[in-house]
């Protein structure tokens, strides 16, 4: 169960890719972030013209990064419906994977060789 959801600050309605990555990096397991409010599928569609091109491009980057983080088992992605075409898109932090999956020594040795 999500205990608290971090809302976007009023003065700045949308977070960018760096904000999302920064939040993922420091969030405790179970913490949630509303990284977008709207209708993602439609808002990222170029012909829909619900956002400016610049906002849409940033939203695409944020959405892709959220998907990537989910694939990396860093976050869960869920959505909450408020009404027609109105959803909160939430990222919920997962516990950090314990096992390292890349050896720094091997990479450095390979680079030197």
């Amino acid at each position, binding site marked *: 169960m999500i205990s608290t959801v971090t809302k976007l600050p009023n003065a700045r309605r949308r977070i960018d*890719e*760096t904000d*999302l*990555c*920064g939040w*993922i*990096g*420091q969030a405790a397991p179970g913490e949630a972030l509303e990284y977008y409010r709207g209708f993602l599928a439609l808002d990222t569609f170029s012909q829909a013209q619900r956002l400016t091109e610049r906002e849409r491009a940033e939203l695409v980057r944020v959405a892709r*990064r959220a998907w*990537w*983080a989910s694939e*990396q088992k*860093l976050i869960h992605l869920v959505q909450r419906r408020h009404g027609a075409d109105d959803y909160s898109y939430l990222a919920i932090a997962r516990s*950090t*994977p314990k096992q*390292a*999956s*890349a*050896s*720094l020594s091997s*990479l*450095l040795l*390979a*680079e*030197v060789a």
Partner: protein
Amino acid sequence: MQSPISRADLQTLLHEADAAARRLIRKLRLSKDDLADVRQELLVDVIARLPAFDPKRGSLGAFAGIVMANRAARVAHKVKRERRLYGAVPTSLDETLPDSDGATRGDLFSEGEGLSAYFGQPVDAFAEVERRLDVERGLGTLDPDDARLSAALSQSNIDELVDRGHAARSSLYRRVKNIRLALLAAGLKAA
């Protein structure tokens, strides 16, 4: 100087060196332990310059006085520079503390307050191990090619990689931006 120095000349040099060293010690408020070192430094300098001494132009005492004054100015400059770097009052880490049962000043400092930490070197072994694990976990989230690029960037900069034909500059910068974001999401901040 054409002939070896006489015993009287040597006495003159020793006297001048002693006086100059004492003046410098007093002026810089150095400890008495430094007196012998400073005296020796002044004396060595004047002996090294003796071949340039011309008795027709003045006495040996005057020659030695000028050489030592110059040398003393350089020593003072060096001491002041070190004080600006390391603090106003020079103290030795090996100095035994009063009523301390043999403990030295250096025993009071933790590794985190030491010279290594001052110059940005890691001093906390546990934190270093944890950081390495974090880095390896972060590298694990990267595409293998990007992980190799990260390793390469620990040895070279972008310009060198471009020169070695790794990839185009714009491509490398784009990948570095992606790597930064991935590592940020893994909890690693930029150094």
